[in-house]
């Protein structure tokens, strides 16, 4: 057999598995709409500096504050006369990168704990799970406040706070996945072939648990975007004046009656992003798990 | 054959999913006489369950679709019937026992309630006492103590569950019982118990039956007539004697018999049929069995064969001309 060819075949085939997923994903209209929407949003954020310089987002012009949308200010101006459009474009960077990073870090922390609990079982499992039960019965907001009060509201600390609030999901999820997968024959087959535990986790359990984890992670991103804005509402979010959607919303609150556009645009930004991420997550779930679709 | 209870003519069923169209059943005709048992044999995916579901019109709503043919039950075409009348037929006139007893009972209802439900559906205004009485009767009939009717399915073993399912199916004394591989999920000794019970009940109640199975042993024990199904077509049909003792056979039937390890004679190698069933989304032109057939001729790959009938025995194969002669496989079994 021509090995060079074989390897290329393998990679070709690997693609074809993701192609299969992609094909199923594409079938769901919602998912595609979500993907298109999110791509546009991400592109806008990526090229934020090209679209409108950052300095516009923080440039105050109090003489022209609280203007409605117009040609000069697409989305109007806020209470400092700053351009809302520029703030939304640049604010998304903070909002979305926090959401993504927090999701990743809670995923890592939670998955590690969950994998340990599920794989080793017994005492370790009970200790982790019981502690988690206790931890979960304390409201998230308390941890968030503690972190933000103690260390101040900034990017890193918000990350820590959001991670604390969201890692518990993953512990349960990954643990149950590991427990289910460890029962499967192919894991036993790997042991029958002499695989070590580490190898089994790395090459059989985690890759197979990935689908569920990815779906959950996607859906989590949108939850975190929302939670982040709630934190801003409670005064625990990103500090001013850096543009950030949640902060913009909470700033817009007092102008709800006089300048509703201040509320509308950041809210729309959040809704569109969270919604498209959700749509993608849902589509992914169906695509990764064909059983769910009849 | 005497009066027919079920007459399926040229039935075709497809499953239409977003991706593909599965031609599950392709123009089959089946006849079941009153009081008779027809065995429908075939491998996984041959379309047996699909046929059964079409009779009860229980094909999955969004995907399954009957594209042609008629299903006459006592002369009425079931496919034309309105939903209300169809409900009366289901469970009342035609009952079905599904393949897997583990999943065909509702886990959160007592078995008594589940049997009672079948009775209530078809006997309006029946009194509570009467229902209880009938439930007890049915359970006794299938050899389960009536006192266990308050138990839930998980408290029963597989064999008992299948008995419950059968009791449920027979609750309204249907004229036709469709049994879809009723014993595949069971152990040998339990399978024997259940098969005997079905046979005995059928004889006692005079029920006609469509017995779906892939086990020729079961057919030999329980059926009067046999239809062999392959890739959505009936490739051979006849009485049990035609199939087990007849001279001429479809190559697939022949292969099927050859594949079964025989208890009586120890051969070193089994006569397996090479290859696999064709993809139902992409059936071959010509004879569906041609790619696996050891007698395959040119014509087989191009022209779809026609049914050739002689008496009770019919075949779908180019090997045979008008009459059942020509190259043939020979006797099956003993």
């Amino acid at each position, binding site marked *: 057999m021509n090995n060079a060819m074989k390897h290329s075949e393998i990679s070709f085939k690997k693609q074809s598995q993701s192609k299969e997923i992609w094909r199923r994903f594409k079938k769901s209209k919602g998912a595609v709409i979500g993907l298109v929407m999110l791509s546009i949003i991400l592109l806008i954020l990526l090229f934020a500096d090209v679209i409108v310089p950052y300095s516009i987002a923080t440039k105050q012009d109090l003489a022209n504050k609280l203007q409605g949308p117009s040609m000069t200010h697409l989305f109007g101006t806020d209470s400092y006369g700053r351009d809302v459009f520029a703030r939304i474009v640049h604010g998304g960077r903070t909002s979305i990168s926090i959401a993504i990073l927090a999701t990743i870090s809670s995923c890592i922390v939670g998955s590690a704990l969950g994998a340990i609990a599920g794989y080793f079982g017994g005492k370790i499992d009970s200790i982790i799970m019981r502690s988690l039960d206790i931890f979960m019965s304390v409201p998230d907001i308390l941890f968030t406040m503690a972190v933000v009060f103690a260390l101040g509201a900034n990017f890193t600390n918000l990350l820590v706070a959001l991670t604390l609030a969201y890692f518990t999901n993953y512990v349960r999820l990954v643990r149950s996945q590991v427990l289910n997968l460890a029962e499967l024959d192919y894991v036993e087959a790997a042991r029958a072939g002499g695989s070590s535990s580490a*190898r089994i986790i790395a090459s059989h359990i985690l890759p*197979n648990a990935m689908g569920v984890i990815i779906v959950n992670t996607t859906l989590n991103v949108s939850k975190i975007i929302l939670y982040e804005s709630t934190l801003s509402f409670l005064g625990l979010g990103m500090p001013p004046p850096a543009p950030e959607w949640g902060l913009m919303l909470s700033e817009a609150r007092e102008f709800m009656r006089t300048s509703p556009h201040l509320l509308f645009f950041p809210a729309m930004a959040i809704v569109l992003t969270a919604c498209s991420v959700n749509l993608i997550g849902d589509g992914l779930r169906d695509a990764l798990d064909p059983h769910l679709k009849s | 054959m005497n009066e027919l209870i079920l007459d399926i003519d040229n039935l075709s069923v497809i499953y239409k999913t977003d991706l593909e169209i599965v031609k599950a059943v392709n123009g089959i005709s089946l006849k079941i006489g009153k009081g008779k048992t027809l065995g429908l044999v075939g491998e*996984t995916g041959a379309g047996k369950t699909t046929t059964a579901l079409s009779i009860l019109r229980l094909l999955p709503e969004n995907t399954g679709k009957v594209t042609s043919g008629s299903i006459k039950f006592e002369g009425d075409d079931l496919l034309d019937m309105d939903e209300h009348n169809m409900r009366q037929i289901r469970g009342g006139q035609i009952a079905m026992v599904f393949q897997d007893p583990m999943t065909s009972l509702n886990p959160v209802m007592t078995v008594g309630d589940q049997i009672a439900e079948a009775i209530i559906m078809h006997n309006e205004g029946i009194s509570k006492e009467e229902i209880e009485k009938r439930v007890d009767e049915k359970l006794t009939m299938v050899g389960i103590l009536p006192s266990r009717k308050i138990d839930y399915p998980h408290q029963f073993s597989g064999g008992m569950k299948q008995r419950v399912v059968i009791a449920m199916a027979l609750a309204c004394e249907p004229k036709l019982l469709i049994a879809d591989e009723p014993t595949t999920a069971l152990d040998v000794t339990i399978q024997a118990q259940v098969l005997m019970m079905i046979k005995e009940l059928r004889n006692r109640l005079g029920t006609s039956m469509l017995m779906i199975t892939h086990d020729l*042993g079961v057919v030999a024990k329980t059926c009067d007539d046999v239809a062999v199904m392959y890739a959505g077509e009936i490739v051979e049909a006849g009485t049990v004697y035609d199939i087990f003792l007849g001279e001429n056979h479809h190559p697939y039937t022949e292969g099927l018999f050859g594949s079964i390890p025989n208890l009586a004679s120890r051969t070193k190698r089994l006569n397996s049929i090479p290859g*696999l069933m064709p993809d139902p989304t992409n059936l071959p032109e010509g004879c569906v069995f041609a790619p696996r057939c050891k007698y395959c001729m040119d014509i087989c790959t191009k022209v779809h064969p026609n049914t050739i009938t002689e008496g009770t025995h019919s075949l779908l194969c180019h090997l045979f001309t008008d009459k059942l002669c020509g190259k043939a496989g020979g006797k099956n079994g003993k």
Partner: protein
Amino acid sequence: MENNKVTPLIETVELKKLFKLNGGARLHAVDGINLKIYPGETVGVVGESGCGKSTLGRTILRLIEPTSGQIYYNGKEITKIKARKLRELRKDIQIIFQDPYSSIDPRKSVIDVIAEYMFIHKVYKNRIDTYNRAAELMDLVGLARRYANSYAHELDGGRRQRIGIARALSLNPKFIVCDEPVSALDVSIQAQILNLLMDLEEELGLTYMFVTHNLSVVKHISTKIMVMYLGKCVEMAPSDELFNNPLHPYTKALLKAIPEPDISKRDEEFTLIKGEVSSPINVKPGCRFAKRCDYCFERCTHEDPDLLEVSSDHFVSCFLLDKN
């Protein structure tokens, strides 16, 4: 077969596996099995669902730790050997699983599944050799090479089971536990796989322990058959002997319960045994089959019958045959 001089390839002595259930009950899955498997033999293990067939197979492979008893491989005890040695042992003892669907990692291509064990044991120095060997194995089990990069879910059951077989063969084992390798397959495919297994046995000089509940299959393939009931061996004899001269009431009933595709026996009634397999949880002493046995007498209910050699190589565990 007179094998007294030869060391058995696999031997189990009073092998027991009890599962502790939630709440402390004990489930006697394997309850004192003595089994000798000589090189070149194919030992069939039959019995109803849940009687402990798979557990026995998996315990012999040390995929499950036995509760008590010993296992010998080639005369050496392997009951307690440590992880490192155990991994070495995996080269010699392999298993083919019942379900060709769940026993293959859906995320690995066929060639990777087959090559996995060789990578684990670093049989070959480089990937290319390993893949070449895997491709050879595909030839051996009759799997077209063009499937090398497919994923298991793209294939049918028969082909998948071939992957499982190729994987089991990849380390050149001497002994393979076949845990119902054909029961998930269609009759026509089943015959293909059985033929393949028998061919391989001959070609490679393999020894099988063939677990199944299908008696026609087991008769076809085995040289010796062990009949299990609730974790115990009730009868063990060479294949023909067992079919011609079943002695244990359970074996008799089992053989009678098989519906044969034979029209002449159409009107023969099955010999039915009453009741169903009882629970293996917290079993009390006494013959396990007593409750369903027509010949049950007082002694059966409280004393365990021993496995007696009633004739050469024919062992039965039943008081009816106890000469004392």
